[in-house]
C-alpha cells in the first residue's frame, strides 16, 4: 500500500476525456515522478489530488483516507503540500512573514483568531520559521519584500514554506520550468537533500528528463490521459512505449 493510492480516476471536460482510468500508487518516503508529453493530463491529475478538481470517477486515497470532495485547505491539513509551476508566495509580505504563515497553519489548523497577540511574541513560530529560513539558505533575506526576490529565490521560499508545514507528501508541479540550467541544478540538489534528510514523500510532475532521472525512484508515464507504464527509472529510459509517446508527439 502506498501513501497515495489513485484508483480508476477519470475526468471529462465537455467532450474531452482529460483523464481515463488512471491508477497510481506512490510509496511512502520515495520520490515518484509523473511524466508525459504536453496535454497528457499531468496537471489535471495533480489538480484532482489537491482538491481543485473533483474527478468524475474513481477514488484518491491519502494514507487510507479519501481526499475527494475536500477543499484544498482540508487536503493540505491532511499532509499534502503543493509547489506550483510559477511560485505562489505572498508577494506583498516579507520573507519572514511568508515563512511564519505555514508554521501557524500547521500549529493552529485552518482558522484560529489570534487577533490581539503580537505575532513576534509567538516564540515557537518565530524560531521554527527562522530555522527553516536558515535551512533554505535565506536567513539574510528575511526582511525582504517577497515579490522583490529572484525567481529562483521565490521557488526556494515556496518549497521552504511547504516544508515548514512538515507535510507527508510534497507535490511539485514542474518546479524547474523556465529556469536556467544553474538554477535547475540548484533545485535538484535542494530536492535531493530534502528527500534524503526528511521523512517525506515527493511526487513530482515534470517533463525535463534531466530532472526526472536525477531525482525519481519510480516513474509513471502518462499519455492522453492514461498511464502507459509505471516502472523504475532504468526501465523507463529504454521503454519503447515511452519513446513512441514522446517521439510520436514530437513527429
Amino acid at each position, binding site marked *: 500500500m502506498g501513501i497515495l493510492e489513485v484508483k480508476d480516476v477519470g475526468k471529462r471536460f465537455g467532450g474531452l476525456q482529460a483523464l481515463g482510468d488512471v491508477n497510481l500508487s506512490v510509496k511512502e518516503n520515495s520520490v515518484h515522478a509523473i511524466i508525459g508529453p504536453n496535454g497528457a493530463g499531468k496537471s489535471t491529475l495533480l489538480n484532482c489530488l*489537491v482538491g481543485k478538481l473533483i474527478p468524475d470517477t474513481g477514488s484518491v486515497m491519502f494514507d487510507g483516507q479519501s481526499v475527494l470532495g475536500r*477543499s*484544498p*485547505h*482540508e487536503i*493540505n*491539513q491532511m499532509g499534502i*503540500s*503543493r509547489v*506550483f509551476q510559477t511560485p*505562489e*508566495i*505572498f*508577494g*506583498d*509580505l516579507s520573507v519572514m*512573514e511568508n515563512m*511564519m*504563515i*505555514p508554521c*501557524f*497553519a*500547521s500549529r493552529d*489548523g*485552518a*482558522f484560529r*483568531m*489570534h*487577533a*490581539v*497577540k*503580537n*505575532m*513576534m*511574541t*509567538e516564540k515557537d*513560530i518565530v524560531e521554527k520559521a527562522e530555522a527553516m529560513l536558515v535551512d533554505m539558505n535565506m536567513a539574510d533575506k528575511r526582511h525582504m519584500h517577497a515579490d522583490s526576490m529572484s525567481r529562483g529565490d521565490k521557488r526556494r521560499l515556496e518549497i521552504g*514554506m511547504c516544508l515548514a*508545514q512538515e507535510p507527508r507528501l510534497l507535490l511539485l508541479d514542474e518546479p524547474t520550468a523556465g529556469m536556467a540550467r544553474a538554477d535547475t541544478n540548484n533545485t535538484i540538489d535542494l530536492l535531493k537533500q530534502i528527500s534524503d534528510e526528511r521523512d517525506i514523500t515527493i511526487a513530482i510532475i515534470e517533463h525535463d528528463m534531466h530532472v526526472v532521472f536525477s531525482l525519481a525512484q519510480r516513474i509513471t508515464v502518462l499519455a492522453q490521459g492514461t498511464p502507459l507504464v509505471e516502472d523504475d527509472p532504468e526501465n523507463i529510459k529504454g521503454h519503447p512505449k515511452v519513446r513512441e509517446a514522446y517521439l510520436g508527439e514530437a513527429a
Partner: protein
Amino acid sequence: MLGLNKNDLTLLLVVAVLTLFAPFILNPFPADSAMAQFNAGYPDLMQRFIIFGIFAIGFNILFGLTGYLSFGHAAFLGVGSYAAVWMFKLLSYNVVPAIGLAIIMAGLFSVLIGYVSLRRSGIYFSILTLAFAQMSFALAYSVLSNPKFNLTNGETGLQVYKNDPQIFHGEGMQDFPHFFGIYMNSTHTMNVGAWSFDFNAGYYLCAIIMIAVFYLSIRIFRSPFGMMLRAIKSNQTRMSYTGLNPRPHTLAAFVISGMYAGLAGGLMAAMDPLAGAERMQWTASGEVVLMTILGGTGTLIGPVLGAGFIKYFENIFSKINDNILHQWFAFLPDGIEDFVVFIIHPFIGKGWHLTLGIMFMLVVIFLPGGLVEGGQRIGKWIKSRGKSDDKTATTEPAE
C-alpha cells in the same frame, strides 16, 4: 509597552495626545478673527471627526488588510444608530446599553451579510454588499416606517418621543443621552485671551473610545490574524494550499469592521439622538471608501486623516459664503476685491463639492499612497534638510 513596538507606541501616543488636545489644536484662530471661520474645534465637528475616524479605522481592517472592497458598510453604521436610538426609546438615555446594542446588532447584521457576500470576491463582492446596503436603505426609508410597523421612522429619522416607554428614565433627568449622568452635550468653554476652547463631554467619550479602538486596530494589524488577512489580500491560492481557510478569516474581518461601524453609528446616536436612513445610502458607504483611500489604504492612521479631511470640507467650506469672502478681502481695493471674490466664489459655499472633487483628484494623482504618503514626504523632506548626513535614521511608515 502595551504589547506594541516602539514605532506603534509612538503613533498611539501621538494619536492620543492629538485627540485629547484637539479642542486646542483645532481652534488655532482667535474666536473673533476673520480666520475663525477655519476653526474646527466646536463639539459637533470634533465628534464627527472622531466618529467617522472610528468608522474608517474599522473599514480599513477589512479593506486595507484583506482587499475586500465593501460598498455597503454604511448599512452597519445605520443599524448601529437605529439600535442605539431604540435603546433610548425603550430603556433610558444612558449611552452604555445603547452603544452596546449598536455594536451587537451591527455585528449580527454583518455576520448575515458577510456570510452571503463573501461567497464571491472582487467586484462581485463589492456589488453584493452594495445591493444589501441599498436594500436596507430603501426599506428603512419607506417600508419599515409604515404606521403599522414603524421601526425606522423613515425620512424624518428615528427619534425619542415623549410617549416612549423609557422604563429606566429617572425623574429629573434631562432628555438627552448621558453617561451615568454626564450629559453628552455638556460643554465647558475656556476663554484664554481672544481664544476660546470647548471641552465637550460627548467628545471626550468618543475620544477615549477612539483611542481604545485605535489601539485595538494596531494590535489586530500586528497580530497573526492581521498577517493572515494581508496574506489573503496577497495570494488567496497560496493561502488555501497552506491549509488555511480564507473564508472564516475574511468573515471575521468583515464582522469586526461591521462592529466598528456599529460602534460609530451608536456614538453618532449618542451625540445626537436621531437616526436617519440616509446614513445607510450608498453615498455614505462610498464616503468611507473615499476616506480610507484618501488617507492611505492599509495604513493605521490614514483612514482617520481621510475622515477628518472630508468632514472638514463638508462642514467648514460649505459654510463660507460671499459675505465672509468680502470681509476677508475687504482690505483690497473694491474692484480687485470683487474680482478675487468672483474667482473664489465657485469653490466655497454651495461649491464645496467642487473643491472636494478637485482635492480627491489632486491627492490621488500626486500622492498615490494617500495623505499618509504626503506626511511621509514632508517628514523626509524635513529630515533631509535637518541633518543630511544621518542616513541610518529611517522613518518607518506610520503603517
